[in-house]
């Protein structure tokens, strides 16, 4: 048995050789086990017959540039996620439907340096991608409530602000804050306060569109970014938030607790110089809602 073929069949890496017409010439054991396709079955067949999803302009372009220029092509997980639709190892299935892959393609030359075939390597990077995903989530979200964190909101807000100004679209912001939250903490303890923060974030998050953003802005203060929404619409949404929270019952150690929120609403208007100015407007409106008696919506 050939030494190299033993290595090729035992490395933790998918190896494929394709002829210039993209028929499979070699398919190592790693590929057999991940794909469930035996080498004898796929040998000589067009790769696209077994993997029609690979027939994309990007993949064909890479094959052609490898075969024509002797280029190497790199298919990073970040840009392509995967080439071959394989199932991931079970522990990652909840996050990824497919095994995440980092792939390389390069030319195989004859003795006279002409290129007659190309090789592909397939590396399973699912675990790495899962860790990265988790890190990014942690970087974006508030650990307690699951809402986005302030940093993410500010970044997102700047992007949305610039986009909405550029295309003259409406954009609104709702800032809200739990009324007498300190009292809740003082009477029932911080764990109860945490529970209420979580409940409220969950309730509001369930009411907004996927294009909206809810973020925990400060201790008991939240901010909701509503793209493509004008002031009257945002006011209505804020009013729905208010009544939903006022009706919601929180149960902590058998006790029923009710809280209310005060809300400030602001929309993008011509002349508003930055997203900070928009936030400031909403914050001023929130202050006014507090001052004028709480459990209400004030727009400006």
């Amino acid at each position: 048995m050939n030494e190299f073929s033993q290595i090729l069949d035992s490395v933790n890496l998918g190896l494929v050789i394709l002829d210039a017409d993209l028929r499979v010439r070699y398919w190592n054991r790693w590929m057999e086990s991940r794909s469930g396709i035996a080498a004898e079955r796929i040998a000589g067949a067009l790769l696209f017959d077994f993997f029609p999803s690979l027939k994309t302009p990007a993949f064909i372009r890479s094959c052609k540039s490898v075969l024509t220029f002797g280029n190497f092509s790199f298919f990073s997980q970040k840009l392509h996620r995967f080439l071959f639709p394989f199932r991931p190892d079970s522990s990652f299935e909840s996050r990824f439907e497919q095994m995440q892959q980092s792939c390389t393609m390069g030319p195989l030359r004859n003795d006279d340096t002409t290129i007659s075939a190309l090789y592909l390597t397939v590396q399973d990077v699912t675990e790495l991608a899962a860790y990265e995903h988790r890190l990014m989530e942690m970087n974006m979200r508030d650990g307690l409530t699951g809402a986005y964190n302030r940093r993410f909101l500010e970044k997102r807000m700047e992007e949305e602000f610039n986009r909405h100004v550029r295309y003259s679209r409406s954009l609104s912001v709702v800032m809200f804050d739990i009324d007498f939250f300190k009292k809740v903490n003082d009477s029932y303890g911080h764990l109860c306060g945490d529970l209420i923060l979580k409940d409220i974030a969950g309730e509001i998050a369930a009411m907004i569109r996927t294009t909206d953003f809810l973020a925990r802005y400060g201790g008991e203060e939240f901010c909701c970014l509503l793209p493509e929404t004008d002031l009257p619409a945002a006011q209505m949404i804020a009013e729905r938030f208010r009544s939903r929270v006022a009706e919601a019952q929180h149960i902590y150690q058998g006790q029923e607790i009710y809280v209310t929120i005060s809300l400030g609403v602001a929309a993008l208007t011509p002349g508003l110089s930055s997203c900070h100015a928009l936030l400031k407007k909403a914050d001023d409106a929130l202050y006014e809602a507090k001052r004028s008696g709480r459990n209400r919506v004030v727009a400006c």
Partner: protein
Amino acid sequence: MDNESLLVADEERDILQELMNIAFGKAAAELAEVISIFVVLSVPSIKVLKAAQLPEYLQEEIRDFADISIVEQNFWGRFKGSAFLVFPAGAGKALISLLDPEHEATFESGTFEVLEKETLMEVGNILIGACVGKMSELLGDVVTYSPPKVVVENEPRGIIPKNLFDPEYTAIVMRTVFRFEERDVRGFLFLVTTHDSIVWLKKALAAFIEHYE
């Protein structure tokens, strides 16, 4: 400049220039024909420098650009060196649709920058591969490449890291301006050959012209 007269004769420089013209012409034609990427490559210019002078030289060359990104890829053969593609900031965004029209959807914050960077690397890989590949082919050589790397990302010009080059080396710098026809993106391609491939290059150039004439 001293270096120029010392190491590379005018005639050799002319041959190199001619070779690059042919190589880049072929590269552009094949990029269009094979993968429908339409790129215009200007007539290249050649300089021989001490590597220590490179950052300063590059800076001067790209002074019209505000912020830049640079993709680096090394190539190995007897023809050996580094290729640098200098893009103006934001070029990645404009090029995403060049590679993958379906990708024009919206992105989560953060993801877009990653995509932009990856796009620069992919475009760099294609362009560098085509140009260097054709050159080495004409010189009778076969090269392999390192994966492309973004070495400068949206930095103000002037920040070309000094440590990119070994200062003692003599470098032949080949510069060309590229422009993607449909995307209004321009940039520079610099090929910097290493010291030890210059001797070989001189021989290869002589062989090339003999064959050519």
